[in-house]
C-alpha cells in the first residue's frame, strides 16, 4: 500500500492547509443551505423597504436624503446579522458529532475557527452585492470615488471578521443552537438600534444619546458614510470615536481579534465535556 509520505512542513504551512480544508468544508455546507442564504439576503432587503420607505418617510435627516444616510447602516447591519448566523451554525456544529471527529484528527488547533470565519465572510459577499444593488436602486450613491468606497467595504469586512469571531465564541459557549440564537440576538438588536445606524441620535434623551454615540456600530457606520462621501446627516457629536471613526473601527476590530481568537482556538480544541 502506498503510504503517503508524512509532511515535514512548517507548522504555519500545515495550519494554512488545514484552515483551507476547513473553509472548503464550510463553503460546501453553506451552498447546501439555501434557506439560510435566502434568509440572509431577504432580511436586509426587507430592511431597505421597511426603513427606507415605511419609517423613512417620517424620519428626516438634516440636509438630505434619508435613504442615502440609511444604506451604509444597512451594510453594517447585514454584517452584524452574519455573526448571528455564525453563532447558530457553530453551536449546531458543536452539538453534532462532527467536531468530535475533527478533534481526533491531527489538525492545527486554529483550523476549524479560521475556516468558519473565512467561509462566513465569503458567504457574506453575495449578500453584500444584493444590498449594494438595492442601495443603488433606492438612491444611494458612492460620492467620494470608487477607491474610498472599496476601502469602506474592506473596513466593513474587517469589522465583520472580528465580530464573526465573537459569533464563534457565543456558539462555542452556548449549549445549543437555540441558546446561541437568543444570546446573540439581544446584543445584536441593541447594538443595531441604539446607534446612528437608522436614525440621528442627537434627538435621543441624553443618556441614550451617549450610549448611541459611543456604540461601536455608530463608529463603523460613520466611517462608512465618510468613505462613501454620504456626509449628509447629524452635526458633529463631539465624541472621540465618532470624530475618528476609521481608527476606532480598525482598532476595535484588531482588539476583538487579538482577544477572542485565542479563546476560541482554545475552546475548539479543549478536551471537554
Amino acid at each position, binding site marked *: 500500500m502506498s503510504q503517503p509520505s508524512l509532511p515535514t512542513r512548517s507548522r504555519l504551512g500545515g495550519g494554512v492547509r*488545514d484552515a483551507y480544508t476547513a473553509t472548503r468544508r464550510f463553503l*460546501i455546507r453553506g451552498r447546501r443551505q439555501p434557506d439560510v442564504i435566502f434568509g440572509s439576503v431577504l432580511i436586509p432587503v426587507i430592511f431597505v423597504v421597511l426603513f427606507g420607505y415605511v419609517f423613512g418617510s417620517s424620519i428626516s435627516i438634516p440636509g438630505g436624503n434619508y435613504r442615502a444616510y440609511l444604506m451604509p447602516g444597512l451594510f453594517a447591519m447585514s454584517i452584524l446579522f452574519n455573526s448571528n448566523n455564525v453563532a447558530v451554525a457553530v453551536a449546531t456544529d458543536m452539538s453534532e458529532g462532527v467536531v*468530535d*471527529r475533527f478533534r*481526533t*484528527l*491531527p*489538525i492545527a488547533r486554529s483550523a476549524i475557527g479560521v475556516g468558519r470565519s473565512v467561509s462566513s465572510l465569503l458567504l457574506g459577499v453575495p449578500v453584500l452585492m444584493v444590498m449594494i444593488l438595492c442601495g443603488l436602486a433606492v438612491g444611494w450613491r458612492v460620492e467620494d470615488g470608487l477607491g474610498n468606497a472599496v476601502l469602506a467595504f474592506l473596513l466593513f469586512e474587517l469589522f465583520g471578521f472580528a465580530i464573526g469571531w465573537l459569533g464563534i465564541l457565543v456558539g462555542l459557549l452556548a449549549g445549543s443552537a437555540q441558546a446561541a440564537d437568543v444570546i446573540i440576538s439581544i446584543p445584536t438588536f441593541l447594538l443595531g438600534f441604539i446607534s446612528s445606524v437608522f436614525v440621528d441620535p442627537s434627538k435621543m434623551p441624553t443618556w441614550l444619546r451617549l450610549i448611541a454615540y459611543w456604540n461601536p456600530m455608530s463608529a463603523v457606520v460613520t466611517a462608512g458614510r465618510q468613505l462613501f462621501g454620504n456626509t449628509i446627516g447629524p452635526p458633529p457629536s463631539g465624541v472621540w470615536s465618532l470624530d475618528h471613526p476609521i481608527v476606532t473601527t480598525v482598532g476595535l476590530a484588531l482588539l476583538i481579534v487579538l482577544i477572542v481568537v485565542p479563546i476560541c482556538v482554545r475552546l475548539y480544541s479543549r478536551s471537554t465535556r
Partner: protein
Amino acid sequence: MSAPAVLAKHLSRSFGATRALVDVSFEVRGGTVCALLGRNGAGKTTAVRILTTLLRADGGSALVDGFDVSTQAHQVRTRIGVTGQSATMDELLTGSENLETIGRFCHLGAGAARRRADELLRQFDLLNAGNRLVKRYSGGMRRRLDLAASLIAEPNMLFLDEPTTGLDPVSRGEMWAYIRGLVSAGTTVLLTTQYLDEADRLADTIVVIDRGLVVARGTPEQLKSSIGRPFLRVTLPDASGAATDQVRQLLGDEAEVQGRSVSAPAADGLTTLSEVVGQLRRLGIATHEVGLELPSLDEVFSSVTDHSAGPEPSPTPVGGEA
C-alpha cells in the same frame, strides 16, 4: 513488540456528582482485539473518549502507542482511528466529500485524499452512495461510513465505540468481518460493546467494566471457565418416568430433571459426554438429544455485574461541589 499499544492506569473521571470512571486500568497488546464490556452507563464511552484525546481524565494516566494522551495529544491523533458511539459525519456533505475532507485533514494531499475516499467507499460497499448526501443514508450506511472515515490514514490503532449497535444481523456480521480483516492485517483494536457474543467472537481479551470499575478481565475462555463448569444435558423423546429415572441415576447425585430433559455438571467435559453417550447406548435408552453446554458469557456478565447485591448505582458525591 514489548510496549503495549494501549496502557491505561487508574483512570478516573467524574461529571459533577456522577462518577463515570472510578479506577480503570488495563492494557491492550499490539495486534490484538480488546473488548470493553459493560452495561449502559458503565463508563465505556468515557474511557474511549479519554484514550482518544477527546476528554481529560481527572486522575490516572494513559499511553497510546507510547504517547501520553493528555500531554502528547497531537502525536496520539496521528496514530489512531476513532469511530465514536454517535455519528460524526457531516449530514450536508456527500459520503465521498466527508471522506475526502478527513483525508485532507490527515494531510494526504488533495489527489490522494480523493483516491483513498474512493477506495474506502468501494471497500465498504458505498460506491453507489458516494455522491449522495449523508442525511439520506440509512443507519447501517452511516455506521459503515463512520468506520471508513476512521481508516483513512491507515492507523494501526483503532477505537470503535459500539461499532455494531443498531445494525441488523447481516450488517453486523459484515462489520465483524471488516474488523477481523483489519486485525489480520496487523491493526490493534479497542472496541466497546454491550453484546457478549460480539466480545466472545471478536476479542482476544475482555475487560468487563461496571460502574466505573473493572470487575473482570481475561480471555473469553478464562472468563467462562472462571465462572462455572460445563453442563451435560440429556433430552428424552418424552417425559415418561422409567427412562428419566435411569438417566438421572446415570448422571449422578447432582442431576436435575426439567420436563423431558435431565442435566448435571460435567466436570471432565467431552470425556464425561462420551462416557454418558456410551452408557446410554448400552442401556438402550432412546434419546432426543445429548449435549454439552458451556457456561455462556451471559452468566459471567450477570455474575460480575450483579446489581441486586448492592444498592443501585447512585451518584456518589465527590469533592466539595454542592
